[in-house]
């Protein structure tokens, strides 16, 4: 099993619903977020190109945060999801430094927090809250090893890219372009 997410940058309108849904679902403290929307404008006026990306933890196959964690608080569970055990985390910040996507933040309570792919929902057969709430249905989640999963079908006949592949992290967020 390998959970992954595909984000359709052509469909995303940058409404930020995924951000709010996540904050509500996961009780993310005020001022913080586990997912966010990047608006990337390239080109020279008037021929500009705009790309919206709903970003979050990439749940990398080769996760630097798991490697550098001194206590094993950052770990991987079945499906390749990277999680943080709160009462094992000492808040040293090494994982935050190690993440090329800046996907982690120090929770005001001390431990380091990040996207969990809403594993508590996924275990019950539901989609992550950001996926469920997206009004343009631009987020696709599922098991990459299952050819009929939502994410596999989304990736099947579309071009895609991952962020900073040169970082060697083998990220598992696929951006459909």
């Amino acid at each position, binding site marked *: 099993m390998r959970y992954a997410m595909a984000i359709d940058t052509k469909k995303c309108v940058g409404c930020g619903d995924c951000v709010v849904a996540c904050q509500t679902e996961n009780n993310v403290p005020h001022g913080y977020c586990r997912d966010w929307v990047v608006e990337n404008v390239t080109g020279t006026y008037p021929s500009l190109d705009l790309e919206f990306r709903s970003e979050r933890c990439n749940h990398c196959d080769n996760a*630097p945060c798991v490697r550098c964690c001194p206590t094993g608080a950052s770990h991987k569970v079945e499906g390749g999801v990277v999680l943080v055990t709160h009462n094992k985390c000492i808040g040293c910040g090494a994982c935050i430094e190690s993440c090329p996507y800046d996907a982690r933040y120090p929770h005001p309570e001390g431990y380091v927090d990040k996207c969990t792919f809403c594993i508590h929902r996924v275990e019950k057969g539901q989609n992550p809250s950001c996926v469920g709430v997206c009004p343009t249905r631009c987020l696709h989640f599922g098991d990459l090893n299952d050819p009929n999963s939502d994410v596999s079908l989304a990736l099947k006949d579309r071009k895609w890219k991952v962020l900073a592949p040169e970082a060697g992290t083998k990220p598992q967020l696929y951006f459909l372009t």
Partner: protein
Amino acid sequence: MKEELMISGRNIPNIDPYLTIWHWQIPLYLFLGGLAAGILFFAGFFVVRGKESKMQATVKWAPIIAPIALVLGLGALFWDLKHKLYFWQLYTTIRLESPMGWGAWTLMIMTPISILWVASYMKEMFPRWDWKFDLLNRFEAFIIKNRISLAWIMMIYSIILGVYTGILLSAFNARPLWNTSILGPLFLVSGFSTGLATTIWISKDAKERKILGRIDLAFIVVELFLIIHLFMGFLAGSQASIEAANLFLGGTFTVSFWVYVVLLGLIFPAVLETLELWGYHVPKWLPPVLILFGGLMFRFIIVEAGQITRYIY
């Protein structure tokens, strides 16, 4: 021309617009760790070489600073932790892949070794010193008997500690400025140089100071060489590395790095030490103070600048 504009709705404290997760505690600790490693390495080195009587300050007096520096460094590290009450988790896990884990264990070994070393010289330094308990006296005799072995262990761990202060940073592939294997040797050499400077400052023996001054001069030259190598490596690297180097070659840290670290912290004290070796009178405290200042600045600048650099996507 291609314009690029990135807007993100995020504004997380200490993460955006750029990372400031590690504040003054980490560079201070890296400095104190390197300083202690430098002092202890040469204390062990001269004992192994049988120069104990000629190098009194190096072997006996300067090492008093090492455990103090290590404990202060540990204090800074603890201060930096955001989930402090769980710090003991460091010592219930062994994770070979984690530099932070290596550091925690190295300090766990190095701090007691440094205390043992100083304790074994207490009676020589303070003739009226009394351990009060027979057990302690017997333990002291045991340590003194095995001093050469302790010196070897101390030298090896000093190197691990010195290199580790650089590897802690260089293991982070996400920060291009840190992600260079030269940082390990560079921090080792810089740490040893600050250790030597402290010992020179303490020593009252002109001959000892001369020997240490010569070694320190060699370390400064090696350090300058490594710094040039560091930038050569960056400029021959990826765009992310080039941008990291540009922070120091015209960017925000240009003046602070080249003036405070290279000029005042390395070249100027090297010139002064050379003049001293040639027999000119130089204030005894000046070269060590400059070297210590340069070493501290170096760590502050590298830690702060490294957190600004990142992959571009």
